[in-house]
């Protein structure tokens, strides 16, 4: 619904799999990475072409490349890809899309991976890393996101990370030297065996590195991970919820005091004025500062939370384009070899599979494991629960416009009625069943409901699933 579009590119390769990780990633050899690059470029080209097609029909002005505002290379570990392979992908992105002049272009890089795949073993590691980072800058990356996770070597080993705290300090320094002025560092807390004090020390050491952005996640035990099996067998013990939440709130306070804006449940961005901002503590709190936003908020991730379009390219990547949510196949062989999408794109009506009639959102040639055309209600519920992840919450006008922007007839018919209704009235008409419980949450100090919309308080975050589920 928003005019902005982002592009997510998934790199499913890692040096080794971490003990807590349930992401789609695995070890790889050069042949696979090269083949993957080919497939990825094919997909990106197809995406660009098909979006151009759909644009042409909408307004037949010119052969403009579709514009995108953000590019995000995530993984896995994008930095395990050879620099020339990454360059190839970036080149394809530029060929296929019109990158905004101020586009945010992020690459995830794990400490300890920047020195691998060294072209010449005799060069010093530091030199290799710096050259690599400079190369990233040169191909256009202007934001670096590093999976630090902890600053304690023992815990890093336990997590299955390949790096040490010293690697982090060195890589951040080299990134600055290479010219990265927008750096995110990831932090994981509630690692089994870790105390709240340990987690806070990690946070302090990460703050000391001065990143513009910090993502802070509570460790979740995901099925099919070594940690999950270890917890099942009793080998490790999950951090109790009380402790986890206590740590979380203390980290939030620490980061706020350090001048970060707590702008999303798990994300913090530096405020230029050095004055931290956080979620409301209680009703009425923070009304004035709610619109003070850090310029270092991740623009790409923000697109997930405001119903913007984003293309998901790569194995198992998710996207939301033209009102369709989809997820690419997670089967590597299929991803590498299936060209039916490209064929389909050439032969058939851009968005429709001629044989099956399946509607494809637009770009992707790989088969989608999942594809769903949003209804008006899908749109509003997603707008609400993703919007609630943000400090400013969701306004009635955003929510209602998500509802009414839906291309399905259901949304349009309804939008014709009751023109004189305010967005607030309209919102609570759609969610009349949820109102009473929402008010209970508000009275309990977990949710702020005002004239503009809804937002969570910091305590409301803890049980946000319960609140969000009122709106789905």
């Amino acid at each position, binding site marked *: 619904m928003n005019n902005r579009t982002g592009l997510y590119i998934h790199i499913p390769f890692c040096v080794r799999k971490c003990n807590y990780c349930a992401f789609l990633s695995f070890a790889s050899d050069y042949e696979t990475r090269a083949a993957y690059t080919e497939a990825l470029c094919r997909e990106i080209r197809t995406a660009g072409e098909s979006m151009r097609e759909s644009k042409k029909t909408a307004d037949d002005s010119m052969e403009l490349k579709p514009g995108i505002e953000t590019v995000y290379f995530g993984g896995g570990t994008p930095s395990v890809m050879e620099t020339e392979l990454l360059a190839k992908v970036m080149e394809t992105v530029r060929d296929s899309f019109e990158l905004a002049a101020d586009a945010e272009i992020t690459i995830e890089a794990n400490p300890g991976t920047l020195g691998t795949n060294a072209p010449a073993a005799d060069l010093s590691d530091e030199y290799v890393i710096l050259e690599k980072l400079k190369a990233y800058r040169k191909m256009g990356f202007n934001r670096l996101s590093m999976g630090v996770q902890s600053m304690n070597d023992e815990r890093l080993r336990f997590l299955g990370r390949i790096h040490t705290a010293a690697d982090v300090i060195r890589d951040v320094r080299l990134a600055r030297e290479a010219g990265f002025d927008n750096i995110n560092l990831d932090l994981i807390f509630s690692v089994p065996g870790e105390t709240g004090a340990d987690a806070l020390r990690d946070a302090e050491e990460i703050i000391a590195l001065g990143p513009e952005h910090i993502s802070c996640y509570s460790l979740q035990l995901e099925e099919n991970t070594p940690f999950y099996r270890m917890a099942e067998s009793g080998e490790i013990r999950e951090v109790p*919820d009380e402790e986890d*939440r206590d740590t979380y709130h203390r980290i939030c306070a620490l980061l706020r005091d350090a001048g970060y804006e707590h702008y999303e449940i798990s994300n913090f961005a530096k405020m230029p004025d050095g004055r931290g901002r956080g979620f409301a503590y209680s009703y009425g709190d923070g009304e004035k500062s709610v619109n003070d936003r850090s310029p270092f908020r991740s623009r790409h991730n923000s697109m*997930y939370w405001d119903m913007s379009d984003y293309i*998901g390219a790569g194995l198992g990547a998710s996207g939301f384009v033209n009102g369709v*949510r989809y997820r690419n196949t997670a089967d590597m062989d299929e991803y590498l070899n299936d060209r039916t999408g490209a064929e389909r794109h050439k032969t058939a009506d851009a968005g429709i599979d001629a044989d099956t009639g399946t509607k494809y959102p637009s770009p992707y040639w790989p088969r989608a494991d999942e594809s769903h055309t949003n209804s008006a209600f*899908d749109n509003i519920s997603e707008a609400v629960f993703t919007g609630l992840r943000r400090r400013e919450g969701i306004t009635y006008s955003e929510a209602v416009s998500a509802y009414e922007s839906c291309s399905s007839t259901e949304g349009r018919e309804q939008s014709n009625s009751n023109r004189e209704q305010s967005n607030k009235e309209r919102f609570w008409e759609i969610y009349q069943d949820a109102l009473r419980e929402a008010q209970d949450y508000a009275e*309990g100090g977990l949710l702020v409901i005002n004239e503009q919309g809804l937002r969570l308080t910091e305590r409301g975050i*803890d049980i946000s699933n319960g609140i*969000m589920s009122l709106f789905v």
Partner: protein
Amino acid sequence: MSYLDNIRNFSIIAHIDHGKSTLADRLIEKTGLVDKRDMKEQYLDNMDIERERGITIKLQTTRLEYKAKDGQTYILNLIDTPGHVDFNYEVSRSLAACDGAVLVVDATQGVEAQTLGNVYLALDEDLEILPVLNKMDLDSARPDDARAEIEDIIGLDASEAPEISAKTGMGIDEMLEKLVEVIPPPQGDPDGRLKALIFDSYYDSYKGVIIYTRVFDGRVKKGDIIKMMNTGKQYEVTEVGYCIPRTLPADELKAGEVGYICGSIKQVADARVGDTITLAEAPTDAPLKGYKKAQSMVYCGIFPAEGEKYENVKDALEKLQVNDAAFNFEPENSAALGYGFRCGFLGLLHMDVITERLARDFDLDVITTLPSVVYKVIMKDGTVLDIQNPSNLPNPVDIAHIEEPIVKADIMTPNEYVGSIMSLCQNRRGNMVHMEYLTKTRVQLHYEMPLNEVIYDFFDALKSRTRGYASLDYEFLRYQPAKLVKLDILLNRELIDALSTIVPEEEAMAKGRGICEKLKDIIPRHQFEVPIQAAIGQKIIARETVRAYRKDVLAKCYGGDVSRKKKLLEKQKAGKKRMRQFGTVTVPQEAFTEVLKLDDGK
């Protein structure tokens, strides 16, 4: 020679799973009056629940024709019996309609508790018993042991017991020959006054109630005015006939025969099992003995779940009642669960069957509360109240004493499990009357036990402690005074009436603690602490707390995978629909039935 000489009326009796229904199917297939294809539809397509559980709840009666080696054709009336202790009365009435019984013993298992129970019922009716050894196709069959058990335990001569396999059809012809030889033909005077036994009935939406009957004397035909001797009701007969097993109209039914009678009867309660049918004009002098009105032994509340309509539940219960004289219900109002029904059942299986049918046949979403027995409350002023809902227990100061139903429980087990069964029964307030070695390795334990202790999960506990080898048979014995108190449960300091139970005073503390612990696991965390308390009167005897501040947040959307997150939230929302709201506390519906399933195995 009389036509009676060519009739044989018999039942098949067996322990659960010993192959009774399979044998019945095989007999129908071999000698039935309908062809095979019809038979499948007619006979097998009955109740899913029975098939799934491998037990026969509803009776089936079938007329078979068998041409014996002596050249004669015999009418064999197979009167099937329900296979569960809950339905003992129905079993006894079915047996009363017979002249003999085929006793099926699983040759791999030998004699079990219900084998004995059923044999005793058959002997009570003076039936000739033909033992047969089933499952002879299995490698694990040990016919000599089974034969020895039949002789030692039951005292029947089993030397000539046919060896059969109901599954493969092996030995069925020999069995039929033997049946004609051993089981006597019926006696009776076709010209006497009508005397016929109702041994089953069911409701048919076209014909009204269809009565299954065995005529002892006289004859009955269309147009006769019949009278039920115990209920006194009179009806004009609209149709008589044989059951093959579907109804096959005939001119008349006469002494010695088995068949059906229709008379525009509106509900099965008007044609009760055990009642005697006679002619209104020329009644017989006395009814057949043994008539009893079905007595509900177990009660529970059935409430519409969130979003389910009261009227729908009521309609369904009414429909079930039309066809089941043993099931009764009346409106009930619970502060916690709202408007619903208090329902009476013969036993736990009966209760399970009815609640399952509500879900399955009527597609209803209901909450079933804890089962309760009927207590006799003797008040200080001398009045006696029957209390089947713990919430209705009067104020203790007005009560002189309370009596609870005691059952006679017979447990048969391999001897190695005796110790663990004895400790289980002791935990359940059982009193051992005596114990006997039926064979060297097989023991029967006779207990007197409060029914209340049997209805929760006694059978499951028994099975799990004996790896499924023990078998149980029980029947009501008497009411007996007991020191009982009402145990209340409070959630967030609010009394939840649907969770109240009546328990022995000396166990109140342990039970209260157990229930609180269980609820603590069942009730999800809230944003505030939820105290769970067990109380007797005003006195709190146990307490647990569901801790507050549950963490319920998804830290990350994996690479913008909004769909995954949405599914999670949708699931959460759906889960909440199955919850009940009590003030500010949300309780999953299963709490009401799960809470008393205390595993005393640990």
